[in-house]
């Protein structure tokens, strides 16, 4: 925990995201964007750690994030994603979807595209709760139960799935280029195929007898059929969308709403979750139980997670350690990544060895030496 750097920013942070680094460069990520919520004036801000794009691992104290630029955002920022290195898309509580452009020469932000009231009720605004980008396509979901397909360079709306959900859709992720997965406040996962006309999901997954609202979803970076979800009860669920309609494993993680879950983009044995209970967890799964995978030492092993439900049959073929669901053999280790913290951690993002998270305590935490 020594390498954690905290900065108080005088605004409650709802989202933090690293700017993607081009695969050609060997640089660590050094620019990130944040969105705020519940302030009188909300903002989208761009921050930089390290100078001239080169972060120096030696000076831990030099890593204090510096504000590069900010832009007023109408309504709470409920979701924020980088479309590419220059463009950021936000979801607003007013129902608007905004695309910002970050001009890196002048260090300014401007609005490149605004889809006002993309999500709406018949006579009121409906918050847009989540979005996912797969350049140039953007898919947004909202409290109005709609799924909307946008294209970055297109002012209009490409496709709307009306009444996709009778409850609120909280998050969305791409499974394939034409397929998205949504989670709702009724504890269901729904698969949507944009190739199909009509407003019916191609598949519904849910835990029988469990209607715990789900708040976040992330797809395994390599295995497109594996997704992780988290919800109101703070449990971590792993699903295989090809098999059955029940989760493969579920693990106790947090004592309150899990707001985000992310697989590490390149080292998929690592997963990160953050929660309303003020904690940020690093999950590490080893694919081979005979190898003690934690030789680095010096880390504070907080709690072994317990597996609540044994996995279904036929997982042996899968190589992912996540699906074994058997932590009793030391497959899974969780580490608390923040010092004791009382207010909600709303967002986390990890890229390479760099982690950034934002809290309701109006602080941004940065760790540039995540052991992955």
């Amino acid at each position, binding site marked *: 925990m020594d390498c954690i750097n905290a900065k*108080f920013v*005088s*605004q*409650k942070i*709802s989202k933090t995201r690293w700017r993607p680094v081009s695969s050609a460069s060997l640089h660590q990520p050094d620019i990130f964007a944040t969105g705020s*919520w*519940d*302030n*009188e004036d909300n903002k989208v801000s761009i921050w930089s750690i390290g100078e001239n794009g080169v972060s120096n691992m030696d000076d831990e104290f030099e890593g204090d994030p510096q504000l590069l630029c900010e832009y007023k955002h109408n*309504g*709470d920022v*409920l979701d924020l994603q980088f479309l590419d290195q220059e463009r950021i898309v936000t979801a607003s*509580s007013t129902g608007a979807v905004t695309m910002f452009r970050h001009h890196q020469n002048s260090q300014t932000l401007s609005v490149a595209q605004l889809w006002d009231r993309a999500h709406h*009720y*018949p*006579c*009121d605004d*409906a*918050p847009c*709760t989540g979005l996912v980008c797969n350049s140039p396509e953007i898919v947004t979901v909202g*409290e*109005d*139960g709609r799924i909307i397909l946008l294209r970055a360079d297109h002012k209009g709306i490409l496709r709307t799935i009306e*009444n996709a*959900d*009778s*409850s*609120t859709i909280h998050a969305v992720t791409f499974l394939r280029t034409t397929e998205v997965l949504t989670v709702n*406040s*009724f*504890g*269901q996962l*729904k698969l949507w195929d944009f190739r199909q006309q009509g407003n019916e999901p191609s598949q*519904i997954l*849910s835990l*029988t*007898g469990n*209607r715990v*609202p789900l708040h976040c979803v992330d797809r395994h970076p390599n295995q497109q059929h594996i997704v992780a979800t988290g919800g*109101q009860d703070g449990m971590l669920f792993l699903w295989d969308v090809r098999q059955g309609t029940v989760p493969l494993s579920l693990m106790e993680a947090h004592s*309150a*709403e899990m707001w985000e879950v992310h697989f590490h983009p390149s080292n998929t044995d690592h997963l990160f979750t953050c929660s*309303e209970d003020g904690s940020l967890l690093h999950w590490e799964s080893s694919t081979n139980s005979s190898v003690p995978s934690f030789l680095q030492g010096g880390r504070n092993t907080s709690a072994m997670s317990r597996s609540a439900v044994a996995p279904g049959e036929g997982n042996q073929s899968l190589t992912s350690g996540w699906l074994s669901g058997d932590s009793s053999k030391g497959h899974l280790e969780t580490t608390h990544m923040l010092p*004791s*913290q*009382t*207010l*909600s951690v709303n967002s986390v993002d990890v890229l390479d060895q760099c982690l950034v998270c934002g809290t*309701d*305590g*109006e*602080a941004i935490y940065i760790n540039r030496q995540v052991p992955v």
Partner: protein
Amino acid sequence: MEEVDVEPTTTLIPGIDFTQKHLGFVWGPGDILVYETEYKATGAAAAGPGRPFVHVVRKDEDIYSPILRKLFNESHHIFVGLQKIKEDVPSKNKKSQFVSISKNYRSVIRACMEELQQVAVSTRDATLQTQYGNQISILLAVELIWNLCEVLFIEAAPAGALQLPLLEWVRLHKADVDEKAREVLQSENPAEHPAYWEVAISYVLQGRTDEARQVLVKQASLQPAARAMFKLLDSLLMKMPIYNPGGNQTLTEFDVKWRHWHEECDRCLLDSSFASNPHLEAICKILVGDEDTLLEYKDLLGTWYHFLVTRLLYSHPTVKPTELHYYAQSSMDMFLDTRSAPEPLDSILLAAFEFDIHQVIKDCSIALNNWWFVAHLTDLLDHCKLLQSHNLHFGSNLREFLLLEYASGLFTHHSLWQLAVGYFDHCPEFGRVYLELQMERVPLDSERKALKVLRICEQRQMAEQVRSICKIMAKRALRNERLGSALSWSIRAKDAAFATLISERFLQDYCAHGTFSDLDLIDNLGSAMLLSDRLTFLGQYREFHKLYGEKQFVEAGTLLLSLMTAKIAPQSFWMTLLTDALPLLEQKRVIFSADQTYELMHCLEELTGGKAVPKLDHPMQDEDVETTKVELLRLALVRNLAQAIVKEGTVEG
């Protein structure tokens, strides 16, 4: 009624002529709303029509300063940590914990101050600059008071040991000496610098003998003739005994040593060892604690409390805490002009030297415009068991009263309200009530925010508030025609009445359109179905449709009948159910047994029996349709009965 402590200040509200108009007002937790009334004083000229403005009058502006927000956020974290210190920790360990917490609070204040200083320098806006300047000076004073309280109350050093922390305190708040010293020492010729003696004497005044010696060496090397004199002073400075409470020296031993040293200094003055150099003589006079000489350096001392500490250092190094107030009072009287009244800061510090904690808190409350400082300090002092149960005429005790005031102020802020929750949690008597009242009033802009508010309420078993928040969300969803959302909110609140209402809407929609909306939800109700009778019926009725769709007619029929006979279905819906039975009755296969058919007939009679006489105001056409339906049903039932009897009477074979 008690006397007021200070005359209240008058705030003029722009645009309202208070000689002509009467003002009405309403108290809020942080603000006051002020408006013009229609009231006319007798004899006053007819005033013009009242203006339709409501003015918000706010005492605390600091809460809206982005930099001070960091203070609130960081200190919240320290506060929560402090509350977690267990009662059963031995008091010795506790003391060091309390001191470190006090230091944490102070370092947060310092960090804020530094940031304010930075922005104050960089801004060009004059009004902003003054605003920052004011905030900095307030923070400076707050930190000064806090530090003194830490030394006197929390560390509570005994006689002798008090000297070092008091010196530290003065040094920390008179840091310009170091700046000046750097300037002098970095100049080409330090000994010739105009501020040279200023620096040397300032160091002596702060008891920094080592640094003073280093500075004096520069001068000594320039005046070889006076070398002996410099050497003598140097040895006096070097020999000056300092009491180290951690060492093995007793206070009496120290006292003997110190007296010896003091006499040596005295002797030097008596035999005029320094007569040829007025600066050195002055330093020596300071060393013997000569008050007149000290007062000559008023400018270098700056404040009466610096004077006090220097005076104690060179005259009464083993001062007992109980004697402090005497020296404090006399120092203040000597130092301050008799004409000028002491500033609030002076009286607060004096009260601290008098160990009158309540006076300190009271004066701070009056002087400062927000409760941050007093609430946190009082809480810390209360944890140190320094506040005897001081009875207030209101509320519970001083600590809780101040915390409640501070937290209520936070709750008026658009986004700092979340911090307030942690403070209310630690107010045992009224915190809960305050929290309950405040939580109900948090504006809910999005589901995300509602979920956060709900979580706070659920963690504290605030059932009433949970219900009310869910109801607000459910009603909003209903208004926006989001039946599914509305239903899931009322399921979360376990609000049976509202669930019934929404189920009715679902059923109405079904009757109107012939299809169910929100099937994804209704099909997955599970045990939540049991929340209300109507919801149970909705779920079961949908189950019937599912069975029917799957062509499981017997099961569907049995379910349909049971919905009526078990009185799950509201009677108003029976006709729909009976109509749903029609296609089952018309099947080639016999679905309903004879007994079941009797029951269906019974249901039909029960339904139609009451209103055999058609009402006149009913349009005739509706009545016709209704009658035809009943006729059809009766026919179908009778035919089914016949078939069933035949079937049941026939021996299979």
